[in-house]
């Protein structure tokens, strides 16, 4: 049976892993390569490295960090941040990533999705969507770019559908309303997107307990869920989290 994936996320700034609350208030959490290996060893199904300031400050992706992290990593490895062209993506793949996550650059130039997909396959392209909706219904959630700084006027549901039609392999949906709050995922928004597209939807933003994951895999219809702060400060490991999910009836990769 296909299992629900737990994806460890490393938000990287200046070569260090950091974790913010609602995209600001940055706290240092360690070395990316070391943390990537630790997450894989502790049962994460995938590892994502997001260079959270790359777009904002116009820097390229930290290829050396990627290379170090990928060296002994034998689970799927995604890199995002600062990938603006198919050449940027090629460099990230060459450094050892399996997938790239694109966000602002895909909004600016949607054909980037198919450009990367045609060379490296659709499975290698994740379109990341930063969503904010406040008290509005999920259908009215709006896409933000540049690390959550700029509203685009685009509706999340429309952009998700377009990304799929242009050949995205997966969607990484981050609720900015929930991010860093450890108060639970936005299950309504996740379900709205997951029901709309055929490709897998990775839920992100708000993980604080195992119950939140049970909720987003059930009510939220997510195929995978991403967590950062829940792991970094020893709240739990992926393995412990998955044991709790299995007890709650969620199908996960165990032993791992």
């Amino acid at each position, binding site marked *: *049976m*296909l*299992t*629900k*994936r737990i994806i460890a996320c490393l938000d990287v700034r200046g070569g260090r892993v950091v974790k913010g609350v609602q995209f600001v208030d940055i706290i240092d959490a360690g070395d990316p390569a070391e943390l990537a290996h630790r997450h*894989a060893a502790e049962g994460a*199904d995938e590892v994502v490295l997001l260079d959270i300031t790359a777009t904002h400050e116009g820097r390229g992706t930290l290829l050396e960090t990627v290379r170090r992290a*990928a*060296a*002994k990593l*034998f*689970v*799927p490895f995604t890199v995002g941040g600062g990938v603006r062209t198919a050449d940027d993506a090629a460099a990230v*793949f*060459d*450094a*050892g990533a*399996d997938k790239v996550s694109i966000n602002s650059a895909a909004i600016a130039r949607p054909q980037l999705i198919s450009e990367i997909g045609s*060379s*490296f*396959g*659709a*499975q*290698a392209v994740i379109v990341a969507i930063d969503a904010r909706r406040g008290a509005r219904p999920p259908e009215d959630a709006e896409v933000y770019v540049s690390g959550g700084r700029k509203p685009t006027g685009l509706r999340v549901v429309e952009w998700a559908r377009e990304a799929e039609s242009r050949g995205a*392999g*997966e969607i990484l949906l981050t609720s900015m309303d929930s991010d860093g709050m450890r108060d639970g995922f936005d299950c309504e928004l996740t379900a709205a997107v997951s029901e709309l597209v*055929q*490709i*897998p939807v990775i839920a992100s933003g708000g993980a604080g307990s195992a119950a939140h994951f049970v909720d987003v895999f059930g009510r939220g219809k997510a*195929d*995978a869920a991403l967590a950062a702060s829940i792991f970094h400060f020893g709240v739990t490991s992926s393995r412990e989290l998955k044991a709790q999910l299995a007890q709650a009836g969620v199908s996960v*990769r165990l032993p*791992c």
Partner: protein
Amino acid sequence: MIAVIDYKAGNLTSVVKALHYLDAREVVVTQSPEAVRGADKIVLPGVGHFQATQLLADLGLTDAVRNSIAKGAWFLGICVGLQWLFEGSTEAPGTPGLGAFAGMCEHFPPLYMDAELKSPHVGWNSLEQIRPDSRLLRGVANGSFVYFTHSWRAPVVHATAAVTYYGGAFTAAVERENVMGVQFHPEKSADVGLRVFRNFVEL
């Protein structure tokens, strides 16, 4: 020598990295039929469209692989590389596969048991009904999880060495003498995947 065939279907970095990690000697990434003829092991990775395998015929690699296999070289196809071992795929009906195994690869059905079936099939799923005589899967237990990402799948045949269930059973691994293939990605399947690679390297 292990020849890893580069036919411009995606990214070979992870496969080569895993082989090096296992101390495989003389790993060569190549498009040359001569290199394939000289190899005692051949790996055909591949993600993406079945159409990309047309390049194998165009470069003379299909014949080189066929000859090498006939002379006893070990062959491992990964993902599209497994699918290529069959007669073809509905993904690119005009591009024949090697035909080592009977049947066509087909897209996952949109519905299974009256429920919507998402595709691609992405993520960790289990290997079942592992053939006890499989050399490639030696030491891998039924129920072990491996990583998949694909929308087309190969049928279950006599040479199937393990199946996986998603919208019914499909061939997750195939093996007949020196010809082997896996639909999953051993280079991305943690310890289980490394075990499969190690089994192949040590043949």
